[in-house]
C-alpha cells in the first residue's frame, strides 16, 4: 500500500506536481506569441486611457478659469479636486498620483510590446500597425506627463527586477526628444483613419499629436508643416456643433482621435464624467431622464460666469446652447440653492443606466487642427493665412468672419475661439500656459472669486480658504506624487511644492 502510494508520486515528476500556473491570468512566458496576443496587449495599453479621461478634466479644465465647483461645507471628501481650482495643491494629491500611475501604465504596456514586436512571428503589416500604435501611445503619454510634471523618469523598457524600477528624472528636453522620435516613427507606420479600426490611433492622430508637441514647444514652423498634412486626410467640420459629441456619431468626420467608452456592458467600460458635471441632486433623473437614480457626487466643473461672458453671442453661436445647460431647484448642499445654475450639457446624452454613459472623450478634433494651424501661422507672422482657418471654425459655429488686424489681436482671437470651441474639452489650461497668460489670468480670476464668492457658487458666508489663488510660475506644473518620492528619494520635487 505504502509502496504503491509512494511509487505513484515518484512516477509523476516532482516538478510537474509543483508546476502550477494561474488559470485566471496568463503568464508572460506564454504570451506574446500570436497576432492575437499582440492585439490583446495593445488593447491593454489603451485601457488606462478610460480612467485617465474620466478624470482628466480636474487637471486641465477645473484648474482654469473656465470652470469652478460648488463648495460643500459638509462634504470635504472632494478637497483634492478643489485644490486644483484654488491652487492649493499638495504633493499627496490623489488625482495626481492616479494620473501618474495610469500614464505610466500605458507606457509600461507599450514598452512591453515594443520590446518584442520586432522579433514577433507575425505579418509585416500587422507588425507595423501594432508598433505604430504602441509608439503613438508612449509618445502621447510622455507628452501628457511632461506638460503636467516637467521632466519625469523616462522608461523605454520594462524593468526586469527591483533595481531596474528606479530611475531619476530626465530633462524636459530628453523627454521631448523621445516623444518626437516615437511620433516620427509612428507616422511612418500607422494607417489612415479609414484603414484603421475605429478608436485606434491612426495617421491623422499621430500628425496632430506631433503638431501639438511642436506647438507646445513653440516650434511654429514645424507645427505648421506637420498640421498641414492633416488637412489632406479627409477630415472635415460637421455642420452642427452639437452632433460632434453624440454617441450615435462616434468616429465622425471631424474626430481625429478620441477615447472610446461604451455603456451597458458588464465590464465597466462606460464613461462616468457626466455625473460629476451635473448638479448634485438626490435624484438626477430630473435632468438625465434616467431612473432609477440615486444622489450623485456632482456640481464639479461648473461653467464660470467668466466663461458665460466669453461667448460673443449666446444666440447665434450654436456652441452656447450645445455646451451649457441651466438648472433651478433645491440642492442637498447645505446653504445652497440652484438658481439658474449652469452645468455642462455637452456630454448630456441619452443613456440607459445611472452613473454610466456612452460618451467618448474627444482628444483631437479637426477644428483643433485648424485653430492650432492658425496659431502657428499667426506666430510666424502669417496672419492673413491664419485668419482663414479661424473663420472656418467661426462660421460653422454660426458666427461672422473676422478680419486680420494685428498679430496680437489675432492671437487673442484664437485664444478666445479655442476657449469657446473646446469648452470642457480640457484644452484651456494648456492654451493659457502656451499663451504665457496662465499666471496673470488665474490670479485675476482668483481675486474675483475671493471678492465675490457667491458668484462662484460658494454658499452664504463661505469663500475660498486662505492661501488660495496665489498663482506663480511654479503652479504651471504639478508636484511629483509624494509616494514616488518617498519610494525613490532620487526624484527631486518640482520647485514650489
Amino acid at each position, binding site marked *: 500500500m505504502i509502496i504503491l502510494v509512494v511509487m505513484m508520486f515518484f512516477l509523476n515528476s516532482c516538478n510537474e506536481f509543483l508546476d502550477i500556473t494561474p488559470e485566471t491570468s496568463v503568464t508572460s512566458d506564454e504570451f506574446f506569441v500570436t497576432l492575437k496576443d499582440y492585439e490583446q496587449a495593445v488593447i491593454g495599453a489603451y485601457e488606462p486611457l478610460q480612467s485617465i479621461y474620466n478624470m482628466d478634466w480636474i487637471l486641465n479644465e477645473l484648474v482654469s478659469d473656465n470652470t469652478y465647483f460648488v463648495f460643500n461645507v459638509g462634504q470635504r471628501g472632494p478637497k483634492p479636486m478643489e485644490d486644483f481650482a484654488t491652487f492649493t495643491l499638495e504633493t499627496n494629491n490623489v488625482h495626481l498620483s492616479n494620473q501618474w500611475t495610469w500614464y505610466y501604465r500605458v507606457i509600461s*504596456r507599450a514598452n512591453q510590446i515594443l520590446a518584442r514586436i520586432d522579433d514577433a512571428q507575425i505579418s509585416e503589416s500587422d507588425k507595423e500597425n501594432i508598433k505604430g500604435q504602441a509608439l503613438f501611445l508612449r509618445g502621447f503619454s510622455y507628452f501628457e506627463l511632461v506638460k503636467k510634471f516637467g521632466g519625469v523618469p523616462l522608461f523605454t523598457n520594462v524593468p526586469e527586477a*527591483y533595481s531596474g524600477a528606479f530611475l531619476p528624472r530626465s530633462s524636459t528636453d530628453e523627454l521631448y526628444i523621445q516623444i518626437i522620435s516615437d511620433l516620427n516613427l509612428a507616422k511612418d507606420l500607422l494607417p489612415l483613419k479609414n484603414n484603421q479600426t475605429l478608436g485606434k490611433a491612426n495617421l491623422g492622430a499621430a500628425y496632430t499629436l506631433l503638431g501639438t508637441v511642436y506647438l507646445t514647444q513653440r516650434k511654429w514652423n514645424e507645427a505648421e508643416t506637420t498640421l498641414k498634412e492633416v488637412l489632406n486626410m479627409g477630415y472635415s467640420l460637421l455642420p452642427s456643433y452639437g452632433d460632434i459629441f453624440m454617441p450615435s456619431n462616434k468616429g465622425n468626420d471631424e474626430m481625429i482621435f478620441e477615447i472610446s467608452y461604451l455603456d451597458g456592458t458588464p465590464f465597466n467600460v462606460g464613461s462616468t464624467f457626466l455625473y460629476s458635471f451635473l448638479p448634485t441632486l438626490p435624484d438626477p433623473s430630473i435632468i438625465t431622464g434616467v431612473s432609477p437614480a440615486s444622489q450623485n457626487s456632482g456640481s464639479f466643473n461648473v461653467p464660470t460666469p467668466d466663461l458665460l461672458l466669453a461667448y460673443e453671442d449666446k444666440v447665434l453661436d450654436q456652441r452656447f446652447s450645445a455646451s451649457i445647460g441651466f438648472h433651478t431647484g433645491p440642492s442637498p448642499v447645505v446653504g445652497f440653492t440652484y438658481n439658474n445654475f449652469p452645468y455642462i450639457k455637452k456630454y448630456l446624452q441619452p443613456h440607459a443606466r445611472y452613473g454610466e454613459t456612452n460618451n467618448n472623450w474627444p482628444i483631437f478634433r479637426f477644428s483643433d487642427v485648424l485653430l492650432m494651424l492658425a496659431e502657428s501661422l499667426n506666430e510666424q507672422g502669417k496672419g492673413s493665412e491664419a485668419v482663414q482657418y479661424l473663420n472656418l471654425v467661426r462660421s460653422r459655429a454660426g458666427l461672422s468672419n473676422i478680419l486680420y488686424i494685428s498679430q496680437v489681436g489675432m492671437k487673442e482671437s484664437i485664444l478666445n475661439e479655442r476657449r469657446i470651441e473646446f469648452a470642457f474639452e480640457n484644452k484651456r489650461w494648456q492654451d493659457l500656459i502656451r499663451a504665457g497668460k496662465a499666471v496673470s489670468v488665474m490670479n485675476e480670476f482668483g481675486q474675483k472669486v475671493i471678492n465675490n464668492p457667491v458668484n462662484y457658487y460658494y454658499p452664504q458666508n463661505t469663500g475660498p480658504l486662505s492661501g488660495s489663488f496665489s498663482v506663480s510660475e511654479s503652479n504651471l506644473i504639478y508636484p511629483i506624487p*509624494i509616494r514616488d518620492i518617498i519610494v525613490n528619494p532620487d526624484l527631486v520635487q518640482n520647485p514650489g511644492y
Partner: protein
Amino acid sequence: MAEQAPARMNASFKLESDGGISPSISPLKLFKVMENNLRRQLIMLSKRLIFAFLVQLFLCTVLLANTGNAQLKNIEKVKISMNLQEKSLAQFFKQVESKTDFKFTYTDNLVDLKQPVTVVENDKSLYDVLVAVSRQTNLRFAQINENIHVKGKEGSSEENTVSIVIKADINVTGRVIDEGGEPIPGVTVSVPGASTGTATDLDGKYSLSVPEGSTLVFSFIGFVAQTIAIGDRSVIDVTLSEDMASLDEVVVVGYGTQSTRNASSSVESVSFEDLTKAPVSQIGQMLQGKILGVRVNQTTGRPGEGMKFQIRGSASISAGSDPLYVIDGMPVSGGLNNLNPAEIETISVLKDAAATSLYGSRGANGVVIIQTKSARPGAMQIEFDTFFGIESVPKERNLKMMDAVQYAQFQKEIAELNNRPVNPMFQNPDSYADSGTNWSDEISRRGSIQSYNLTLRGGAERFKTAVTAGYFNQDGVIIGTGYERYSLRFNTGFQASDKLKISFNLAPTYATNTNFSSDGNPYGAAGGNIVSSALITTPLVGPYDEDGNLRLTASDPATFGNPNWLRVAKDRVYENENLSLLSNLIIEYEIINGLKAKVSANIELNQNKIFQFNPSTAGRLFLPPPVIPFGSEQNSNLNNWLIENTLDYNKEVNGHKFDALIGFTSQKSRYESTFINARNYPDDKIQAVSAASQLSVTNDIQEWSLLSYLARVNYNYKNKYLFTGAIRRDGSSRFGSQNRWGNFPSVSLGWVVSEEDFWNIDAVSFFKIRASYGIVGNFNIGNYSFRNSLSPSNYVFGNSFVQGRGLSNIGDQQLGWEKNKQFNIGADLTLFNDKVKITYNYYTKLASDLLYNVELPLSSGFNSLQTNIGELKFWGHEIGVSTFIINNDRFSWNSNFNISFDRNKTISLSTVDGVFFHGMSSYGFRSHKTEVGKPLGLFYGAIQDGVYINQQDFDNSPKHSSSQVGTIKFKDLNGDGQITFPADYTEIGNPWPKYTFGFTNEFSFNNFDLSIVLVGSYGNKILTHYDNWVTNLDGVFNVLEEVKDRWKSPEDPGKGLYGSTQAGTTFLERDRWHSRFIKDGSYISVRTISSGYNFPMDQNKFINNLRVYSSIQNVFLFTKYPGTNPEVNTRNSGSGINPGVDENSYPVPRTISLGVNLTF
C-alpha cells in the same frame, strides 16, 4: 440482565474508572495531556476530594444496610417467604436480595441465570431455600459474611451445596505517604470484590472495617497502586511510589506524541477538560491567557469571528503571522472559527523550530495542533452538554459621544464661528435636554448564545467510536447579525488485527452567519460599516417618525444625507453559508515489533456562499436612501488534500531509547470562487442577482501544491539525556524554479539534571534544561507571485467592446522561502513537592529573506514587487509559574501565571535607504514605518504641539500652508520654519507590547469550583484611526464629547487637543497621521469568571456526573485606552504590515451564561 448484576456489584468503583482517575486504563493515560504536572495534580486532587466524599456517602449506605459485625446474620437464622413458579434464577436472586441484606456474587459466564427455579416457601430459613435451589440448579452456595457466593457443583456431594463462613471484621487503620514522606490525601482504600472502601483524609490517614484475611488495594492517580494482604495486622502504613509512566504526560507533537518529561523542544499543551469551565463559542476564547507564549486576541465581537492567534510575537511584514492549524494531522486552510470546541480533546502549541521543523515551510509562526475526541474502547459513555447565555454590549466601554444638547451646541458654535446663520434646529440646544438618540444603542440589542453538544464514546477493543453532534446559535448584539453552526464529528478506530489498525474520521460542519459589514471606517465599501456609521449619526433624529414607523433617513441640516441605521440593520440582507467537511483515513501497520508504517489520507472540503442584497431603503454614509438596490453573490469551493506516508521505529536497549521517523507527504489545494456583482435592480421585490439589470462576474482560482520529505530521531538515555533531530524538505509551487526546494532542519537537546545521582536538592524534584536550534519557513505569499502575469484589461474601439491583456504583476524569478532561524533555551523546574512548577524560555528568531510586496516607483508601471527584502530579529523571554497554594479536603486554590516579553528589530532591508513605509494610507501617507535598527512597523506621523492659541502664537510658530489661528500645531522637526510632510514626520509610537500576560486562578470548595482568568498587555500603543471620524470638526458628524473642549477663540482655546471648526481648516488635523491618534493600549482584563457545581451522583444508576456551571465573560477591563476594545485591530492584527490600528469594530459582548453537563 446477565450484564447488569455484576455491574451493580461494582457500582462504587465503576465511578472511579469513569471519572478518569483509575491509573490502570492506559489509553486514557495516553491522551491525558495537560499543561503541566502540577496542574494535573490539582485537578486530580479536586476530583479526589469529590470522590472521597462520594465514597463516604457510599459507606454510610453500607453501614445502614449492615448494622455491624455483631449483628451479622447467618443464613440459617434468616427466614424468608417466596412464591416463584418456574422463574429465572436471576429473579430468585433479586427477590432474596430485596428481602434480606445478603448479596449474591458470581461470575456470570459460569452461572446460567436464565435457568428456571421454583421456590414456594413460607417463613423458611434461607439456608433451606438455598439447599432446595441447589438441588434444582446444580449450583453451590457459600455464605461469606453478607455475601453469598454462587459456584457450579464439583462432583455430586450434596453436603457441601450450602456452606457458611462468618469472618469477623477487623478494624484496620494506617497512613499513606509518598516517597517524600508527605501524606497523600484522597487515596482510595478498597477490598477487591467487596463493596467496602474508604479514602484517606488530609493527613493521609484512613480507618476501615474489613473481614479478616482480606486484601487491601491502595490506589491513587499518579502513583503505583499497592495491594497488601492484611493478615492479622490492624495497622498498615503504606508508602506509594510515583507512577512514572502516568506522570509522563503525553503531548501531541508533529507526527506523533512525546512525553513532556522527555521533550527537549518548546511545546505547550492544554486538554479540553481544563478549558471547558467557561462556555464559549470559539476555541480561541477558551485559550486566552492560558498558554505560555501564545497571545490570543479577540479583535472583534462579530458572532463566530475575530480570534487572532499570535505565537511568540510572530509577525511577518507581509507573509502573514497566523500559525499553522493542524486538525488530526491535517494542516487546514481555514482557521478554527467553525470548529466546534466540544470536539476537541487536546490542543498543542509548537513554538520553537525543534517542534515546528517537521512542518518545515509553514512552521515559522508556530503550529497549533488540535486533536479531536478520539475513539476509545470501554463502556459506552454519553455526555450531554448545553449552555445558554445572554450577551450585552459593555456600555461603559462605548465611545462617549455628544448628547443631543452638546451636539446642537456644537453645531450652533460652528455656524457662529463661520458667520453662518444658525439653523433653527440648533438654535436652542437646551431644548434637547432629556431627548436625543444614541445610535449605537439603537442598533444594538441583547444577544443570546445557546449550545447543545452530545458526545458518545465507547466500543470494544476491535471497534471503537466517538461521535460528537453539536448545535450552536448566537444572536449578535448588533441587530441583524448572528451565527449558527451544526456540526458532527465521527471518529472511529478498527483494530483489524494485532498489527493492523484503521481509523476513519469524518467531520461535516454547516455554519451560517448574517454578519453584514460592521467593522472599520464609516465611509466603506458597498454597504458602509454600521458600527462607525451609527456612532457618528446625529442624535437629533431618531429611528422612528411621529407615527412610529421606521424613517428612511437620519439626517439633520448640518449632516450628510444618512440612512436610518436601524433600518439598514434590519433591511440589509447578508447570508453567509459555509459547508465544510474534514475527513481522515489512517492505516497503521506494525511490520515488526516496534516498526510501524502509517498511511494517512486527509481531505478538507469547503463550500461557501455569500449572498448580499442592499434594498432601496438601506443606504450608506453620503448616500441616503432611496438608493438603487444592489447585491452580490459569491460562491467558492475549496478542495485541499494531503497524503502522508510515515515509518516509525521504536527501540529500547539498556536504557537507550530510540524513536525514528521518516515520511513522505504530498498536498494540493485548489480554491475556486465566482463573484457576481449585481447592480441596478429595478426594485426590492426580487433579490436574486438575476433580477439586477447589470451583472458582472469575476472569478478566481488559486492552487498550490507541496511535496515534502521528513525525518526525525528521538533519543534518550535513562530519561536523563535527551536528543531530537528532525528535518523536512519541502518543494512548493509558490516559488520560482530556482528556489523551489527548501530544507528545514532542527536539533534539540535536553538534560534532566534532577535524574542525576548527584542531585540532592530535595526542594527541587524535577529540573530539566533544554536547548534547540532549527530553521523553519514561511510560504504565505500569493500562489503565483513569482510569475509575470497578465490580467484582462478591456477597452472599446468605436462601439465594440474589446478584450485585452495587460501586465498586472512583475514577478521575481528569484523569489524564495522566508527562512526563520530559531534558537530556544529553557528550563523546567518543579519545586516543593510539586507545589510550584516553573517554566522558562528564551528564544531568538532570525527571519531572513523576508517576503514582502515591496513598493516600486509607480513610474516603473507597477505598484509593487513580491520579493525577499531583508532580515528581522525576534527575541523574548517567557516565564510560566504554576502554584498550588492551598489544598485541604474542603478547599483548594491553584493559580497559573504566564508572562511573555517579546521583542523584534529590523536587521537589514534591501529597500532604498533601508526603510519602507506600509500600513494604511491617508492621502498618500502611510501609517507605519520600518527602518533598519528599529522595531518593525512603528507608527509614523507628525507630533502635535497643541493648537495655535492666538495670533502671537501663530506668528511665532512654524506653520503649514493651511494653518490659521486655532488650527492644530505640529512640531517642526527639521527646523526649516515650516510644517511640511513628510519632512516633519517621525516615529510616533510602538505598536508592540513590552509584555503580555495571563493569570488564572482556580478554587474549589467541596463540590463547588470557581475560576478567574485575567489577561493583559502592557506598553503597546494603538493608532485610533477612528479619531478620523469621531473628532471631525466640520460638524457633519456627531463627535466625541471631549471635542467640546476645542479651540473656540483666543480667549477660550480649550485643552489644546482639538482645533478650530473654521470651515476648510480641519483637514490637517483629521487626515494626517499625528500623535493625538496614538493612545496607550495597556490593559488588564478580567476575561472570565466561571463557577460550577458537581452534584453527587453516586446513588444514581443512570447519571454518572451532573455538573451545573455558569460564567461571565469580559467582566471588567482596567485600561486607560479610550476605545472600546484594546485587543481590537480591525485590519489584520498580528501582521507586521499594520499592527495596532483601531478603526472601531463590533463590540465584544459581555456574556453571562449557564450550562449543564451530564455524563451517563
